């Protein structure tokens, strides 16, 4: 085995280990000087990115990878012949790869932006340490195949996010937002832990594939599902559990908000994994043995569709009346989460049973359901990029003017030309305007939802138009209008921040102009990984399925 094969083999562990180790080394490296520390953080995240690329190539070429922590006999074989792993296991399929790619892109760009944006702040050794640990926890959540391990990473993510939201501790609002975040997150995490207890009591296992293989959808399983889904949708920001999100996103430093988006999406990934893999027998299976569960899948699907539409409407309406730029983007981020859940809901609601006379002959999903799922997954990355870019622009304006209130801004396009162009691209992309990336994913969601129910699509399209109106308001009040006396000396932000925003814009344009490049290479494999849940199970428990 050469060095490259060794690195490829251990890449799942290294992806988590490198940023974790770097996080703990950062305070020491800071002792040398700030430039060395900044370079160190950037290099460590780049190494993590390279490891993700290596693992991604391997998974997309050779299929699912499992990585068992620890040596020796890691597989137990029961008298019945059932074998299962007793150690922590990372199981990486295309969906995991899709998520870690998003996380590392956001983390690297966020750090590049931070180098200029946070330059004048104190306590940056702690800042970068916590950022690296937040990235570690997010990557961990997205790679693990163990529910308890997921919970541990979820807790680390909550604590580090809280610390970073409160980074501007001199601002009372930041402290308040962080407190609310930790209260809500901890309670949700406790519900998640309680659900794990229920599943462990039932199946004597915490490995996702093992539980997914054994799941019966008994009353205990149902209770566990509800607790997990409620906790993870709260973490993702679904209405009416979204209220922490504008508070936190609005008060954290924008460079942090950019990375926090990845942590939020990790909660969303958890919801995807639980619905489509852990409870795959209920929601994903086309086995006639589970015919009585189709109605449950449909009902949960419609509930998610309803919550998604409410999320979109409330997100957009609340954004419309905001005068604080960052808080406004926070509410639009909530609306975008609604679009993602809309796709999941449509997928579940489109499951149906074929009958011949009175007997069921087959279970199937409507043709449009795969478009809905693809659109939903594609929208995850688009949401991260578009909303993330807008937060970076908000940060640039704050950096230049020390203002976040739209009532106090105006005429900034004169002095911040690049930032203005970046904002225009961000607003068009997030509103789903062609030819940007948001359009392609929203089109897939609209067309699939239309076949389920046209009225839902009409509401979603109208909300998207309102979203455009929201950002036209921002554009008009912040960038247009006569030059303000107090902003006469305002200059364009430093190059580091422009490079970070420019990088996001380039990705948005590439994804917008060549949507099939993304869909065929990472979105479709991710959707296939979710729908073919039995492959995920069989990689851990060979021979069982």
């Amino acid at each position: 085995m050469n060095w490259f094969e060794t690195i490829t083999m251990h890449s799942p562990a290294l992806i988590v280990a490198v940023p974790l180790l770097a996080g703990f080394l950062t305070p020491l490296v800071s002792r040398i000087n700030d430039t060395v520390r900044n370079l160190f953080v950037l290099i460590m995240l780049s190494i993590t990115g390279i490891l993700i690329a290596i693992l991604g190539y391997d998974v997309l070429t050779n299929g699912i990878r499992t990585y068992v922590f620890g040596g020796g006999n890691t597989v137990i074989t029961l008298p019945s012949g059932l074998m299962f792993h007793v150690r922590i296991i990372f199981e990486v399929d295309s969906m995991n790869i899709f998520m870690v790619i998003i996380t590392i892109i956001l983390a690297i760009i966020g750090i590049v932006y931070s180098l200029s944006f946070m330059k004048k702040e104190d306590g940056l050794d702690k800042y970068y340490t916590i950022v690296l640990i937040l990235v570690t926890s997010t990557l961990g959540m997205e790679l693990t195949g163990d529910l308890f391990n997921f919970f541990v990473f979820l807790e680390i993510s909550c604590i580090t996010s809280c610390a970073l939201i409160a980074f501007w501790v001199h601002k009372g609002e930041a402290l308040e937002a962080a407190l609310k975040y930790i209260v809500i997150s901890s309670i949700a995490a406790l519900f998640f832990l309680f659900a794990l207890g229920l599943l462990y009591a039932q199946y004597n296992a915490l490995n996702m594939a093992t539980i997914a293989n054994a799941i019966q959808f008994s009353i205990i399983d149902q209770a566990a599902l509800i607790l997990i889904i409620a906790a993870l949708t709260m973490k993702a920001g679904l209405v009416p559990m979204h209220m922490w999100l504008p508070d936190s996103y609005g008060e954290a430093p924008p460079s942090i908000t950019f990375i926090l988006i990845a942590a939020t999406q990790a909660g969303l990934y958890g919801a995807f994994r639980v619905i489509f893999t852990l409870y795959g027998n209920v929601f994903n299976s086309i086995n006639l043995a589970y015919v009585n569960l189709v109605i449950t899948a449909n009902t949960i699907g419609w509930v998610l569709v309803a919550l998604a539409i409410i999320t979109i409407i409330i997100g957009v309406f609340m954004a419309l009346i905001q005068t604080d730029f960052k808080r406004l983007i926070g509410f639009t981020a909530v609306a975008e989460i609604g679009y993602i859940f809309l796709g999941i809901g449509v997928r579940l609601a489109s499951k149906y049973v074929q009958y011949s006379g009175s007997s069921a002959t087959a279970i199937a999903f409507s043709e449009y359901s795969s478009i809905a799922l693809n659109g939903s997954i594609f929208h995850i990355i688009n949401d991260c990029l578009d909303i993330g870019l807008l937060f970076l622009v908000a940060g640039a304006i704050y950096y230049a003017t020390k203002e976040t209130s739209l009532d106090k801004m105006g005429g900034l396009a004169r002095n911040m030309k690049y930032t203005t162009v970046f904002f225009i691209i961000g607003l068009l992309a997030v509103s789903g305007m062609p030819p940007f990336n948001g359009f392609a994913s929203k089109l897939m969601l609209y067309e699939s939802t239309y076949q389920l129910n046209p009225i839902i699509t009409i509401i979603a399209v109208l909300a998207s138009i309102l979203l455009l109106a929201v950002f036209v308001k921002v554009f008009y009040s912040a960038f247009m209008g006569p030059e303000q006396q107090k902003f006469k000396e305002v200059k364009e932000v430093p190059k580091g921040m422009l490079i970070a925003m420019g990088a996001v814009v380039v990705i948005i344009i590439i994804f917008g102009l060549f949507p099939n490049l993304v869909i065929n290479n990472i979105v479709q494999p991710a959707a296939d990984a979710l729908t073919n849940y039995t492959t995920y199970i069989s990689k851990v428990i060979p021979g069982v399925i």
Partner: protein
Amino acid sequence: MFSFESILETLKTGSGFWDPLIWVIIAALAFLLIYVLRSFGKKEFKEKTEQTQSFLSGNPEYEKEQMRIKGSNVYWGFIETMKWAFNILRKIHTGNASDYVLWLIIVMGFLFIVVFITGAL
């Protein structure tokens, strides 16, 4: 495995399709058409003369800095008309962490009812 072959493929959306490159070409042609039409415009138009001044019905003209519409004034009419809805939304968003937890419990309770009923069917 990553492939670049699909770079110019048209995105099929079930009942429709989306090809951004065609859209870009059409948009470029539309802009070209606009430019051509614009070139037929009045030649006597002169920039930075009184021709470009806005007519304010004889009202005194404010200082340029004062002629700014604040963010909270944009869509004033729409927001006034929909005030009842926005008031409800504002009331829901209390900013109180206890209420946030309450919403989590309410959703959980609702899901319990839905899943237990459909699971029992």
